[in-house]
């Protein structure tokens, strides 16, 4: 008798075609969020404020009520949802461009207000959906379609360290950076995502996880090489870790 040990979380839709590129970490990240929602037993009480970019189609896969926000405004819409329905669990799932470039004001202020929200931000050092342009997290030296000779400080300035910035906001209850490059790190990532939801549920404050992620298509790498890049190039700059955890301060 075979025992089923791996199955589709209830919080994912089984009957849809996933539109992420092969090898992209978005698929893993969305699945982790869905597993956490399942484990916390909150699916029927959860609302997603979706974003723009590769993450836009998340609402096609995730099996919770969803509202599409304009580019960068997910945390404003999430704030509106949560203030209108404080009993709901509300989260955003955004890319780094959405969260930390066009939406930086909304993101920082949601954290500063200590909104009881959870924000998941995928950092893949590029604007994926539009074809791999330079974004707020593009590393120094990185070649993109709008930094053809690599990111240099003179023209482009520096990449933003999102998890550290969000940790600085007094309203933030939890801020962490995780990666999905190994099984062990995927497990850690899930724990962080769970915590980011738990701080919302216990009304401690804003919960945030930055997920270092691959973009094999725009990086023009195999998934395996892409994970090596996460390890060798991204993790030394964007160091994984927990930058704030109010649950452990008490």
């Amino acid at each position, binding site marked *: 008798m075979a025992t089923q040990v791996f199955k589709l979380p209830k919080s994912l839709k089984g009957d849809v075609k996933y539109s992420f590129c092969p090898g992209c970490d978005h698929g893993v990240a969305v699945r982790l969020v869905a597993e956490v929602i399942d484990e916390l037993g909150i699916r029927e*009480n959860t609302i997603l404020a979706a974003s723009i970019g590769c993450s836009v189609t998340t609402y096609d896969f995730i099996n919770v009520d969803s509202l*599409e*926000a304009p580019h960068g405004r997910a945390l404003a819409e999430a704030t509106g949802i949560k203030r209108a*329905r404080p009993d709901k669990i509300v989260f955003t799932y955004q890319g780094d461009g959405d969260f930390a470039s066009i939406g930086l004001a909304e993101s920082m202020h949601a954290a500063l207000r200590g909104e009881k929200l959870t924000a998941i931000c995928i950092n893949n050092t590029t604007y994926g959906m539009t074809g791999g342009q330079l974004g707020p997290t593009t590393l120094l030296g990185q070649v993109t379609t709008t930094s053809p000779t690599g990111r240099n400080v003179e023209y482009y300035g520096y990449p933003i360290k999102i998890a550290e910035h969000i940790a600085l906001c007094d309203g933030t209850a939890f801020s962490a950076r995780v990666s999905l490059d190994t099984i062990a790190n995927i497990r850690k990532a899930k724990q962080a995502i769970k915590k980011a939801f738990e701080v919302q549920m216990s009304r401690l404050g804003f919960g945030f996880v930055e997920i270092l992620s691959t973009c094999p298509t725009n990086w023009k790498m195999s998934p395996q090489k892409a994970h090596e890049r996460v390890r060798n190039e991204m993790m030394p700059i964007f160091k994984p870790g927990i930058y704030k955890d109010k649950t452990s301060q008490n």
Partner: protein
Amino acid sequence: MTTQCLTNKKVLTKGNYAIAQAAILAGCQCYFGYPITPQSEIGEFMSGKMQELKRAYVSAESELAAINMTIGAVSTGVKAMTSSSSCAVSLMQEGLSYATADQLPVVLVSVMRGGPGLGNIYPSQGDYFQATKGGGNGDYNLIVLAPSTVQECVDLTYKAFYLAQKYRNPTVLLADGLLGQMMEPVEFYDYPYPEIDTSSWALTGAKNREARIIRSYAPLADDQCVFLKKLFEKYRIIEENEVEWEEINTCDADIVLVSFGSTSRNVKTAMKMLREKGIKAGFFRPITLYPFPSKRLKELSKNVKKFVTVEVNMGQMVNDVRLAVNGACPVELVNKGVGAPPSAAEIVSRIEELI
């Protein structure tokens, strides 16, 4: 002044406070806003009253955030609003376009000031186009209501919440600095409209039903064509049912003065003065700027020799009157760029020059 309590008796109050108080009586559960003159009293009033009533209030970090917070709140089926003015309403155009595509009952109070750019804080009607033609992308209409007195600020705030929910379309209460800042006696009363059931579409958690998605993204061209057809069928119904206007002395009028909002008071007076001089003048005031009372203007154009719109802008509504009349008779403009409306005497003398 900011602490004036909810009451049914006649009170002297500013247009801005009247709007805020009416919104509360209409059952507005959430207010999101960023200060800008000449409408800051709305947010000031709301900050105290909403907390007192245990409703939601957020000092948004920007108008971008404020309109999107409002979208978030109304997506859950509650009544919510934001308020702003001119150059800051510009920042909300993206959100309004999304809210229209998402079919969400956002209520925006737009208290016009001078423009373009930073302009100034004086009254203006320079955002007629902004409200009725939209600055957001794509094909859409906002329902636009234009109060002309402080009492109408109350009446039309109620109506804005009702129409927004009835048609699931963003609705704008288009006031101006004059109305926002002036005081008049008003009477508040209970919300006079039926409550709209939002349970068939609101995001409340996918319990015992399929998960809902409120979205505007339609990757396939055909899907978008179907959606737009549906959206514009809704607008046809709105145009059929919700047009509202005021008209006086139009039955025998040779010349009809057309104005909206706070300018109308002076224009009505000018019409009376023209009558006293033996000129057969009439007065016509669109109350809904969208849907615009085009049909009625077209009817009137059969017997009217001339329409004159009076506006505090460089000539905006005049275009809609011309479209409605469609060449049946001349449509002229008497205007002033910005500030309190031209005096009745000035309107009279400028109209005498036209005839």
